[in-house]
């Protein structure tokens, strides 16, 4: 049984205008799923459905055996599915880092010692141990977002949903978050990243492309980015390495068709030397 299963989910905010139409997919333990698509494709709505902030109009979302449509299960789901949003400023509740991270475990009613341990764990997972007593106000965007992630990790989720969590960060901040994601996957936490950046999506195990509330494409990064004409039609670009490989190919260089990531491009170029 997959850890998180989305079964034929449809959702609409207003009548007669469906934001999501019959979306189905599943995420296994430790898997990295990237969801890409344009503004208004329903990405963020999908994110909010995953931890029960919104309830599907039809279909079902099942996390570790709990259905998000079940009113009594919503806290069980939120314990398992952590959610990090775009703007770190609007997610931090307390004026001191450790107090903010304690917020989730406090809500669970955990004993003090356990909360302390969880703060240690979460800060270590995002590499911010030295900032325990710091004020978020004085941190950089990337650091603030890492604290926001730590606040969610303190709940020990099995799935981490990043809803465009790197959109407001500079390249340095995006790199920091990417490192945190790698670290979490090693720990077996599944990651669902909703993103605009193809460079982030290319690292995923699986990519979903949403278009006007429907899954337009899905598969491994190689499979998805091989469908260039479909992506073109959806106005989505290849990752930078894919674009460069394409252009080099057009110039007559012998580069394999399935080159999409930086490492693959480097390997292909190396072979040509």
């Amino acid at each position: 049984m997959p850890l998180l299963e989305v079964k034929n989910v449809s959702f609409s905010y207003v009548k007669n205008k469906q934001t999501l139409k019959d979306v189905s997919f599943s995420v296994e333990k430790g898997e990295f799923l990237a969801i890409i698509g344009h503004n208004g494709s329903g990405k963020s709505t999908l994110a909010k459905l995953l931890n029960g902030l919104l309830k599907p109009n039809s279909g079902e979302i099942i996390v570790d055996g709990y259905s998000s449509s079940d009113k009594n299960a919503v806290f069980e789901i939120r314990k398992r599915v952590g959610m990090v949003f775009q703007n770190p400023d609007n997610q931090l509740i307390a004026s001191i880092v450790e107090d903010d991270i304690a917020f989730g475990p406090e809500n669970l009613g955990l004993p003090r010692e356990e909360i302390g341990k969880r703060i240690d764990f979460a800060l270590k997972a995002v590499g911010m141990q030295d900032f325990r007593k710091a004020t978020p106000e004085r941190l950089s965007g990337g650091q603030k977002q890492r604290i926001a992630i730590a606040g969610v990790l303190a709940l020990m989720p099995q799935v981490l949903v990043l809803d465009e969590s790197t959109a407001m960060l500079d390249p340095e901040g995006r790199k920091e978050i990417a490192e945190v994601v790698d670290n979490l996957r090693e720990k077996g936490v599944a990651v669902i990243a909703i993103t605009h950046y193809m460079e982030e999506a290319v690292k995923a195990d699986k990519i979903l492309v949403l278009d006007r509330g429907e899954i337009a494409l899905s598969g491994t990064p190689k499979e998805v980015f091989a469908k260039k004409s479909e992506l073109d039609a959806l106005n989505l670009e290849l990752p930078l390495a894919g674009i460069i490989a394409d252009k080099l190919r057009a110039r007559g260089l012998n580069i394999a068709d399935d080159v999409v990531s930086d490492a693959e491009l480097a390997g292909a170029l190396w072979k040509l030397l």
Partner: protein
Amino acid sequence: MRDVSFGSYFPAKSFVHSMDARAKILIAIAYMVAVFLVSAFHFLGFAACLLFVIISTITAKVPFGLVLKSVKTIIFFVVFSAVLQLFFNRKGTVLFWIITDVGLLNAGFIIARIVLIVLGASLLTLTTSPVELADGIEGLLLPLKWIKFPVHEFALIMSIALRFIPTLIGETDRIIKAQKARGADFESGNIFKRAKALIPVLIPLLISSFRRADELADAMDSRCYAGSKNRTKYKKMRLTYRDLLGVLFVAGLIVGIVFLNKFYLLSGLSVIAGAL
């Protein structure tokens, strides 16, 4: 806009800093009561209060300049109150022009009172972080749960407000700059014109605050927030010997002032009566 007094916390490791916020708030209130207990023209009582502040400041390892800075912000208020006393007090004998001796004494009395109270309050905020202060108020309000007062919610609102003050100040600055870049004029014209010029700042600020509140609510929900039910607290406040000493200290001050009021004043009067 920048120098909001909430940033007045002076971090240090001291006896006073490590006291329980609840005790500190109560002591500060008791101190203010003591200042008000000092009876008319009895400046020795004020001296006792001043001594209390000086000793507290030394034990708190806070520079005196910082404590005094708080008086600067209310200097207008102090001068205004004193001037009112000077010019409108008709009691006593006229010293010169319309100023009477009682008026002069009253003015001094009021200055001493306000300054001493502000010194005490600023010492509290200098040695207690806003978060501790909010926790302390929550702790003190806890008995109100009996009358169904939402203590936890109240405390959460306070701490979120504290958390967002710097964020919203930054946002205000950005909006002002953005409007200036679009030709808005905040500097010229009379007070009404300038107040009106602020509308294009306040409306975006209000709208973005609502957006922030919405996102914050989602983030809190996502972190399993369900009100105060079954909630634990990571930070436990503990009363220590320090708090007991502090309470004894302020109690000593109050007793001293009451004593001074009763006996010293009587003996002082009798001395004057004897001399007459």
